[in-house]
C-alpha cells in the first residue's frame, strides 16, 4: 500500500519552543488515520505543515507525491483542510460561503453543486442564514462540506467534532467513512477515544514527538501494560478509591493510575514490579481486584507519562 502522505523528521520551531520535533509519519492511501495527542502537542502545527500553511524548519516529505516544500501549490489543489477554528466567513450566508469556495476552486455548475450540497446537509431552508449565526455543530458540518466540495484526494481534519453532539458526531463519522470508501485519505485529529477507535490507524503525538503509530490494538499491545481494575467493596465508600490512588501514585512499578467510572485502573509495564508494589493492598478487604485488559486510553496515558518522564530526565522543558 502506498502512502498518500509521507514525512520524515518534520520539525517546527516557534521561538524557543519546538512545537513539532522530528516527526516521521506515513498515512496510507484511502485510510482514515486518527491523530491524537494532548493539548499543545503539535497536531495543528503538523497539519498546517502538511498543507503548506507553515514552512517546516527541518525535515520534509511529500503529499500525493508532491514535495511539501517546493510543490505546495500543487498540493493545495488536491487537499481539503478543515481548520480547528471555524474559518469560513461569518458575515456571508451558508450559500454564499459554499459558492465562494466552489468558484475559487473553479468548479463547474456552481449553483447546482451548492444546492446539492445544501440538500445533503439538510440546510436548504437555512441557506440564507449567516454562517456566523449557526450553532457550533452546524458550523462544523458546513466546514466539512466546504472543504470536501472540490473532491480532494486527501482530507486533513483538525478536531472536526469538537463541541458536536453525539448523534451529529455519528453522522460526521459516517460521512468520513463514506469519503474514505471512495478512496479519500483522511487524517483527522481528535481528543475522543471512541472516535480514535473508528479510525483505521492511529498516530499519537506528545511534546511534538510521535510516540506511537499503528492500529488501536497494535498500540495497546506495544504499550505492554499489565492492568488491574479495582472496585470499592462498599460502593458507598466513595473516598476509598481516591485514597488508594493517592497511596499508589509514584510507587515503583505503577505506571498508570486512572479513574474509570466507578473503578480505578492501575497498571504497569513490568508485571512483576507492579505485583510487588500492589501486594500490600491486594488483600485489603475494602477493594476488589480484577485483572483487566488495557484500553486505548490507558495506553495513551502511559505513553504520555513516559514521554514526560523522559523529557524531565533529559532536562527538557515540559
Amino acid at each position, binding site marked *: 500500500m502506498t502512502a498518500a502522505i509521507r514525512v520524515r523528521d518534520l520539525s517546527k520551531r516557534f521561538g524557543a519552543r519546538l512545537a513539532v520535533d522530528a516527526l516521521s509519519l506515513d498515512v496510507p492511501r484511502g485510510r482514515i488515520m486518527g491523530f491524537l495527542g494532548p493539548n499543545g502537542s503539535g497536531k495543528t502545527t503538523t497539519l*498546517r505543515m502538511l498543507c503548506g500553511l507553515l514552512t517546516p524548519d527541518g525535515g520534509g516529505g511529500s503529499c500525493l507525491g508532491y514535495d511539501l516544500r517546493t510543490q505546495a501549490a500543487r498540493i493545495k489543489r488536491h487537499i481539503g*483542510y478543515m*481548520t480547528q477554528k471555524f474559518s*469560513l466567513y461569518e*458575515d456571508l450566508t451558508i450559500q454564499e460561503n459554499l459558492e*465562494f469556495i466552489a468558484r*475559487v*476552486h*473553479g468548479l463547474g455548475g456552481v449553483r447546482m453543486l451548492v444546492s446539492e450540497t445544501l440538500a445533503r446537509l439538510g440546510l436548504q431552508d437555512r441557506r440564507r442564514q449567516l454562517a456566523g449565526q449557526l450553532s457550533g455543530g452546524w458550523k462544523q458540518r458546513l466546514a466539512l462540506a466546504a472543504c470536501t466540495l472540490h473532491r480532494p484526494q486527501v482530507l486533513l481534519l483538525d478536531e472536526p467534532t469538537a463541541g458536536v453532539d453525539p448523534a451529529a458526531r455519528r453522522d460526521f463519522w459516517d460521512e468520513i467513512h463514506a469519503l474514505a470508501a471512495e478512496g479519500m485519505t483522511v487524517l483527522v485529529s481528535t481528543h475522543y477515544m471512541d472516535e480514535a477507535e473508528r479510525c483505521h490507524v492511529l498516530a499519537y503525538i506528545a511534546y511534538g514527538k510521535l510516540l506511537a503509530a499503528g492500529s488501536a490494538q497494535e498500540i495497546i499491545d506495544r504499550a505492554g501494560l499489565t492492568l488491574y481494575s479495582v472496585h470499592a467493596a462498599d460502593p458507598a465508600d466513595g473516598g476509598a478509591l481516591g485514597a488508594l490512588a493517592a497511596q499508589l501514585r509514584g510507587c515503583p512499578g505503577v505506571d498508570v493510575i486512572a479513574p474509570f467510572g466507578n473503578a480505578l485502573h492501575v497498571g504497569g509495564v513490568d508485571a512483576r514490579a507492579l505485583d510487588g508494589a500492589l501486594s500490600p493492598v491486594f488483600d485489603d478487604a475494602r477493594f476488589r481486584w480484577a485483572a483487566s485488559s488495557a484500553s486505548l486510553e490507558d495506553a495513551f496515558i502511559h505513553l504520555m507519562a513516559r514521554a514526560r518522564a523522559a523529557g524531565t530526565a533529559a532536562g527538557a522543558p515540559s
Partner: protein
Amino acid sequence: MSILASLHRWYALIIKELIQMRRDRMTFSMMLSVPLMQLALFGFAVNSDPKNLPAAVIDADRGPFGRAFTSALEVSGYFDIVARDSNEREAGALMASGAVQFVITIPEGFSRDVMRGDRPALLVEADATDPAATSNALGNLGLLAATALDRDLSGPLASLRQGPPPFELVVHKRYNEEGNTQFNVVPGLIGVVLSSTMVVMTAMAMTRERERGTLENILVTPIRPFEMMMGKISPYILIGLVQTVIILLASAFLFDVPFQGNLALLFACCMLFICANLAIGFIFSTIARTQLQAMQMASTFLLPSILLSGFMFPFRGMPGWAQALGEALPLTHFLRIVRGIILKGSTLADVAFDVGMLVAILLAIGFLSLRLYRRTLD
C-alpha cells in the same frame, strides 16, 4: 485556460468582497459620507471669509486720495489698519513678525498722479504664508481699487470713474509666491479624500482575514497572491470613483470651482491614483499583523501625504528634503494633475510627468506587495 481559472478566482473574490462590503453597513456608509464630511470641513473652513486682517499703511503721499483709499480699506471690513503712518523699515518688521498681514504703500505724488490720469501704482504686499487667509481680502482689493475713489472723483475728475480704475494695484505676495487660493484646495480635496479612504480600507483587507482566522482557509485554496490583491482592490475602485463624482459635483455646485479641463482625462487620472492608493493600503495589510497595526501604518502614511504633498503648504515653500519626500508621495503628483486639469485645463501632455510618476509608484508598490505577500501563516 490558466488565465480563465485566474479570472474565475478573481471574480469569486470580488463577489465575496462586495457582499461583505454591503453587509458592513457602518463602513459602507462611512465610505460615502467621509468625502462629504471632509469636503464640508476643509471646503468651508477654507471658504470662511477671514476679516479684520492686520495691515500697515506707508503713506508717502499724504494726499486726499491716499487717505480715501485707506479709509475704503477699513470700511471693507477685510483690513484692520494697525499702523497708519508707518515707514518701510517698521512695516517690514511688522510683516516679518506676523503682526501685520499686509503692507500697503501709497507712493509719493499718488494723489497728483491720479488727478492727472496717470494711473499710478499702489503697492500691496501680502503675507501669503496662509493663502487661504489672504485670498479673499486680496480678491476684494481689486473691487476696492475700482470704487474707492469714486466719491472723491467728482466734478472735472468724474470722467476718471469710467474705464479702468484710476490707479494700478500691484499685489506682491511675500513668503509664498505660488499663492494658493480656495480653488486650489477643493480640487486637492479629491486627492485627500481618496487617499484617506482608499488606503485605510485596503490596509484592513488582509489583516481582517488574518484576525478573523479566515486567512487560514484562503491560503489553502488555489488563490494566488496577484488574484488576492486584485480581488481585494477591485471593489474599492468603484467606491473611489463614486467618491470622485460626489466631490466633483460638490466642487462645481457648492464651491463654484471653475471647471476647465477634460472630464475623461480627469477620471482616468483619478482611477490611476485610486489604484496607487489601494496598492499602498494592500502593502500595509500584508506587512501588518493586526488591524490596529495596519491602521497605524495608514495614518503614518496619510499625515505626510497631507502635509508634504502641497495640499496644506505650498510645495515650493518647503525645504528641499521635504520636497524630495513629497515627490515620492502619490498625492503630490495627483494634486498637480487634478489642479492642472480642473483649474488650468491641462492636457495629458501637460501632466505627463506626474501621470508617469503615478504609474511608476503604482507598479513599484504593486510589485513590492506581491513580493511581501505571505503565502503561509509563518
